[in-house]
């Protein structure tokens, strides 16, 4: 019995060592830092403490200034603290769910970690700990300064009958900082399992993926209408400032009542039923840990190893058609690739797809602000022009990496006895079909929304802004392709399978931003004097831009395409 106990203790010790090695290895891989000596670790610890102190001090002075100038004392209240922490927790839960799903079941490092002389449960535990450490860091720099600042600045308690005990407040902070980050990790782990099944289901077919994205877009669109209808008819921030502040305060109070477990933490800090709240917190943590061990842990190895096995792909319909025209072959291939990777294709259009929702919300708020009656709508139109053009013209970025995404397959084009530069025209054509389709749907949604919500000035301008956007987007598509012909990153893509580091994207975005600013400036100059006739300048300008881009692209294609080497 003694031996069994001793072995168990030794085994636990060894297990603990293995887990800490795994954790440290994964952290080093993410942070890309060299291993630190004890001395350096100590220094690093104290530096972090100093940093937190500095952030807290800065926050204290900033908040004092803001509170005095804007009379918003409620940001030092418990309600605000609850809402703030709850908002951070919500984002943490979302990121942890996605992150845990990736880390537990899809990450390539599972190949390495599972091959080490460790138990699967130890690998699993190490991944959870790694995520907890990230959340802890976020809490230290994101939540702790605010908690400290509020503690220093306020004497207000939750209930007027209850005194605010600063000593309790500060003594209980460590519990908050240590236990609070654990909860999103546990929730994220629990949600990661259904999330991964959902992801598999969505990815099983391009049609399902597309439907899912469209449902999301339309849901957001619908939600926008709900939010807009809940807005007051008039938002007179300056003239009815006190009322405005009271409304915000009430909003925080009502939202705070929905903050679930965060309430326990904050009530505990404010010395309200301290022991009971601590008990609730521990209960939540223990329940979470138990559920994770019972539900997620058993599935871990099966799901993690499953993603590494050769996928049993279904057969595609056998194609027997041949194409005598090489250009048609190019187009067919581009469509097939885009369709089969619809998720990635749609990703690049997300901003345009959500644009109607964003625009309707912003402009609905703007139209409710108490503005000068004569110039208010004009300024609103200028803002609308800026936002719309920025959103429309900085989203055409996929094309600027389309040639790079050929990777080493570009060899086929180099060795083929055909005019392979025509592949660029095929890519442009396919991109335009998607881009113009998405733009049309988005602008239509925006138009319908503006009509329904009676945002008059927007309704007038939308069709014209649409025309300018479409023409310019075509030009930008040629620009994006041109940039890729001049700077193809074939090998980089072949190695990393990622276009994140590709500089062509920023070049295209830069041009889109510049055009947005130019259009808005011209629009702003003309709108005061000639109104809608400003588009008599903008439309020809966009056509000139398009013609220039086509000409430039053709010239560059002729001059540089053959020089591309793999």
């Amino acid at each position: 019995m003694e031996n069994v106990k001793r072995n168990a203790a030794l085994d636990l010790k060894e297990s603990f060592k293995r887990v800490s090695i795994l954790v440290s290895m994964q952290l080093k891989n993410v942070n890309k830092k060299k291993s630190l000596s004890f001395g350096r670790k100590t220094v690093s610890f104290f530096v972090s403490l100093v940093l937190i102190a500095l952030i807290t001090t800065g926050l204290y002075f900033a908040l004092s200034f803001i509170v005095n100038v804007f009379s918003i004392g409620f940001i030092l209240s418990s309600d605000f603290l609850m809402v703030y922490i709850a908002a951070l927790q919500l984002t943490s839960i979302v990121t942890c769910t996605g992150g845990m799903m990736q880390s537990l079941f899809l990450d390539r490092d599972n190949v390495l970690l599972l091959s080490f002389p460790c138990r699967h449960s130890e690998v699993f535990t190490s991944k959870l700990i790694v995520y907890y450490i990230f959340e802890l860091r976020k809490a230290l720099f994101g939540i702790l300064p605010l908690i400290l600042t509020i503690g220093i600045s306020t004497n207000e308690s939750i209930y007027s009958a209850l005194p605010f005990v600063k000593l309790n407040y500060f003594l209980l902070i460590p519990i908050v900082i240590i236990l609070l980050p654990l909860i999103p990790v546990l929730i994220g782990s629990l949600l990661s399992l259904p999330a991964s099944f959902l992801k598999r289901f969505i990815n099983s077919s391009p049609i399902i993926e597309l439907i899912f994205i469209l449902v999301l877009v339309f849901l957001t669109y619908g939600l926008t209408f709900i939010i807009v209808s809940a807005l007051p008819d008039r938002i007179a921030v300056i003239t009815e400032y006190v009322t405005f502040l009271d409304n915000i305060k009430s909003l925080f109070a009502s939202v705070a009542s929905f903050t679930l477990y965060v309430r326990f933490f904050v009530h505990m800090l404010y010395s309200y039923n301290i022991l009971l709240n601590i008990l609730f917190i521990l209960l939540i943590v223990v329940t979470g840990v138990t559920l994770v061990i019972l539900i997620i842990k058993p599935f871990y190895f099966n799901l993690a190893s499953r993603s590494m096995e050769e996928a049993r792909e279904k057969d595609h319909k056998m194609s027997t058609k041949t194409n005598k025209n090489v250009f048609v072959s190019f187009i067919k291939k581009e469509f097939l690739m885009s369709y089969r990777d619809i998720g990635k294709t749609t990703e690049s259009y997300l901003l345009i797809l959500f644009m109607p929702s964003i625009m309707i919300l912003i402009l609905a708020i703007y139209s409710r602000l108490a503005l000068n009656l004569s110039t208010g709508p004009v300024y609103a139109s200028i803002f609308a022009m800026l936002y719309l053009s920025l959103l429309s013209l900085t989203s055409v970025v996929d094309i600027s990496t389309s040639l790079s995404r050929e990777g080493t397959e570009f060899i086929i084009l180099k060795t083929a006895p055909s005019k392979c530069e025509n592949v660029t025209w095929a890519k442009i054509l396919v991109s335009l079909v998607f881009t113009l389709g998405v733009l049309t749907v988005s602008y239509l949604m925006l138009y319908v929304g503006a009509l329904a919500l009676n945002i008059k000035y927007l309704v007038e301008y939308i069709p014209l802004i649409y025309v300018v956007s479409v023409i310019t987007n075509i030009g930008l598509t040629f620009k994006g392709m041109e940039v890729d012909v001049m700077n193809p990153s074939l090998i980089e893509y072949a190695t990393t399978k990622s276009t994140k580091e590709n500089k062509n994207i920023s070049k295209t975005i830069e041009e889109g931003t510049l055009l947005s600013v130019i259009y808005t400036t011209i629009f702003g100059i003309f709108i005061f004097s000639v109104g809608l006739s400003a588009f008599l300048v903008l439309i020809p300008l966009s056509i000139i831009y398009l013609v220039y881009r086509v000409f430039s692209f053709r010239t560059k294609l002729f001059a540089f395409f053959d020089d591309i080497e793999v």
Partner: protein
Amino acid sequence: MTLFQILSAVLSVASVILILKFVRKENTLNNMLKVSALLLFVCIFLILMVRPYDPSEFDAWKEISSYTVSVLKGRYDGVFTSKIEALLIVILKWFTNILLATSFANALRDTKEFRLYNIILLPIGIILNIVFFRNNIFSIVGNYHSREVLESGFFFFKILMLAILFALFLKKELMKEKEERFKTKDFVSGLYILPLLLVLVPPIYILQFLFGQNGAYSTGFNKNHLTMLIATVVLFIYMLLYLRKRTIEEKKAFLVLIAYASFYQYYSRYCTFTMPLADYPLHICNTAVIFMLIAIVFNVESLFYFTYFCNTLGALFALLMPNKGDFYSSSILEFWYNHILDFVFPFLAVSLGVFRRPKFKDMVKAIGVFTVYVIIAQLAGAYVNYDIDPSLNTTHVDFFFLYGDKFTSIKLVETFAYDLKYSINPDGTYRFVFYTNLFGRHVYMYLLNTLFIYLFFIAFSFLLWYIVDRIFLTIEDVQLTIYKTKLKKEKIGKTSKKEIDEILKKMEGKTMVKISHFSKKYGGSKNYSVKDFNLTIEDGDVFGFIGHNGAGKSTVIKSLVGIQSITEGSIEINGYDIEKYPLEAKLNIGYVSDNHAVYEKLTGREYINYVADLYKVDKKTRDERISYYTKMFGLTDALDKEAKGYSHGMKQKLVVIASLIHNPKVWVLDEPLTGLDPTSSYEIKECMREHASKGNIVFFSTHVIEVIEKLCNKIAIISHGELMGVYKIEDLKKEGITLESLYLKYVVSDENKNRFKEEDIKTTDAGLILEK
């Protein structure tokens, strides 16, 4: 004649003789040129600086630049007796200014255009100045004889320095080889720059002197204002076109000239030594006249980039919002000279490549210098304006617009700008005015206003930098595109049907790959990756290609199949040059790359069909071949699944099938057996044998010597980019030489040979080598 006049003549001649006789070494000559240029510059500077500030002391100076004088229009009532005399003296001054400018520039940077002025015209100028010595002095001092000696002294020194410079230029000319000496065409090229010189260094009062008052202001984009804006653009384009093909030295010489002109024109209007602080040139554009000169003469990058970022912006604002004043007056002309040259100089210097295009770190340094400038301007302004009520809209001095009301007069920001300066607290004090003691004076500063102007200026500097950088990028882009288009048009062969038929007739029945003197350099590298590579491969050959890692195997193969360009030499596939007739050449080639890349989202069949479309294979043929090869390689079941699910071997087989779909006459494979299991390797080797047996060429690279020995009939060995030899396997076997020993002989370096056994590294009979 005066004493100074005589001294000028005598000492000038003496200097010329002494220098021509005793200066022999080129180094001494160059150093003397630089020192003389510096002394000349100091002399000119002192001449300009020691004039008393109060113009009333100098009646002649006042009259020569006053509004009542006009030589060409109406009356003249200046100090000279006649219009003709006045005109001659002014023309002489103009001429002398040109000689001073070109002497200064040429002494620092040699350029042939200035030779006309330095060799031919300079002695004429010296003589004329000596002859009209008294007239010149009279035009400056008039009836104020107390200053006559001082001015005569300066003038004498100026003539002497010019004479010394002339002697040095002449000596330098005589020291050159006959072919390099001054010629008639240098005379002509010197005349070409005369209009530029006339425009750059006229006497600052020239317009007023010739035409009197104009009466019109240059403001609000009127005719005069637009004229000067167009002149700015024209000057820039003219200088750019004129200088772009010159050497760096010549470009620098002209930039020195421009910087000198800017400096000279500014200081001929302002005499600083005797001025009160209020009139010191502490406006940002005034600093440019000093910085530009120092930057170009001493090649000081930090000052140059300060002018690039900060002075150009100030100049741009000034050009768009010019001073008011009579358009012909010397003050307005000086304004235009200062700002046009401030604006043009930095961009010209970068366009010509004299200074590189600035980076962010240069901007940071410029901001540092600008910060120091703003502090100095603020303190100087505070010190001078101490006695003016902050609420009043007046000022003694307005360095960098920190005290004046330039911004409150701009409609868009007038209220904001006003509040920044004049906001009042409830107790009646100014909210944003800061009071302090400065060198014994109780001064005040509009600190928030200063901060706003400072940040505004920096923001606009970034904006201007961005716009100018984009313009430079666009121009470079256009130039590169034009160059590449031209190159490509020269490269493409005209593939008329007749020419193709002729080639086909010559090649009837034959399949051949001919690599002649092929060399390849990558990018900007100085070293060749492959040098002078020659190889001929004939039909029916299974040709192995071996070499160490980095020997150049893939380079040769990629150039052979048209993936990479050829630096030197040529590659022909069945008579078609791969560069001139790429489409025809590639029709004959099938290629299997070393990385087996396939489109993972396509199925195997879709991938093969895609390749077949590119090679224009008809449906019946491709279906037959797909069926045949998929059975051979066992891919039938996987053919309609996406390639992303294929194993490494399956992907390789797929690429092999795609490369054979058009039955190429030349089949090129780059390390085709890497990472394959024995079955897959066997299948591909059988395929290679079969393909060659049909009279086609199979050319492949590999590291596996045993495969080559079993499969190939010929091999080529490459090492460090050079072909070591071509051998028949049969002959090697007859001689008892293993391929391994042959490889080690050529590939292993001498210092490593002691690691291998003697008998493994045998020499070969030279007769076995087929080609080298």
